[in-house]
């Protein structure tokens, strides 16, 4: 069984929460759990309740979707030091993509209901978590826009 101290250390060391205030970290620890996912297994599925989010500690995973008659489409890959999942922040809290472990995956998961409750009760925590999510969302959006440009494709000319 992983000790509370260990969870706190993992939160501290992960780039996403680096430098967070100790009091807020203690609140986070209460909602956190260590998980491992075998390669090929799903962390979550499109449409399912988004009841958690994850700090990726080790390994990599693919954000996927699928379309009839086509092989699985990988939208983006997420690896060590990154986070996965922000559907838990937006009602009605359902995953919009599949997330599948490409390698053995070690993650720190946070219970969404637990965390949302604490964030509502403590706006300082709420602000701190959102403040760290927004740049990630911004980067993902910019990256997606770049991907849409199909930069390396042959253009009509």
């Amino acid at each position: 069984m992983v000790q509370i101290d260990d969870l706190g250390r993992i939160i501290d060391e992960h780039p996403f929460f680096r430098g967070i205030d100790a009091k807020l970290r203690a609140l986070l620890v209460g909602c956190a759990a260590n998980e491992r996912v075998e390669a090929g297994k799903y962390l979550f599925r499109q449409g399912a309740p988004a009841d958690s989010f994850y700090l990726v500690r080790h390994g990599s995973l693919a954000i996927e979707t699928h379309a009839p008659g086509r092989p699985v489409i990988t939208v983006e890959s997420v690896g060590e030091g990154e986070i996965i999942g922000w559907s838990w922040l937006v009602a009605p809290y359902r995953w919009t993509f599949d997330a599948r472990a490409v390698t053995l995956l070690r993650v720190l998961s946070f219970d969404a209901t637990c965390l949302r409750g604490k964030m509502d009760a403590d706006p300082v925590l709420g602000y701190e978590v959102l403040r760290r999510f927004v740049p990630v969302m911004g980067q993902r959006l910019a990256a997606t826009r770049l991907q849409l440009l199909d930069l390396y494709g042959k253009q009509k000319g």
Partner: protein
Amino acid sequence: MIALPADPMLPRLFDVLKVKRELADTFTLELKSDGGGFGFQAGQFNMLYAFGAGEVPISISGDPGKPGTLVHTIRAVGAVTEAMGRLKPGDTLGVRGPYGTPWPVEQAFGDDLVIVAGGVGLAPLRPAIYQALANREKFGRVSILYGARSPEDILFRKELEQWRGRFDLEVLVTVDRVSGNWGGNVGVVTKLVAKAGFDPMDTTAFVCGPEVMMRFAVDSLEKRGVSTDKIHVSMERNMKCGLGVCGHCQWGPHFVCRDGPVFHFDEIAGLFSVREL
């Protein structure tokens, strides 16, 4: 009256030694001339002439330490490059050059070196990679960050795999789109900048790829803390003479063929954002 120089618009004739298919639309030509070797600096380009079809600027993709043969990697995107794609060993190609500014590999000695390449933009950077590897001990960390459209579009794949197998080199590859089996990264090349292990305070970066990709790559490098006076980019414009005299490749005050293609980012930061310049 001064003696007039030889006409710089006259090509030197080279024989095609080898043709290597790289990707569906991209191939590498190895050329040799009776007239001896071909010295060049990493990042420079030549004007290549295919008989009757025309002339195009193509960067040199070979090893500057091996000037015995001349290596060009070409993507068939128009009539001239398609004609080049039909060349066979023994055929002739006209060559003028080398032209343009090089990657400042030696200036980067003592720094970490980050190479950011997108698509076929890896070709003009390969000579710099060869040169860096030949002088590996003179650098701190060396990272190659490469983005391609899909796993099938990864240029120099075997070489990238070899490089990745070295202990003194970080090679990160990502692709924009995937369907099917691919265990690697998916996402734009700029994401790799955040992941790579270099010390931004002492890093020189070489960037080559489509212009939009370069803008974003420079942006990510700056965000990591790399100083803009240590970022270098390679520009593409309509080079027709290579000599700064036909006018076509003008970009602001620069002739890209003569003042570039490799620019110090600081020199061109103001031009980079101007549309249709």
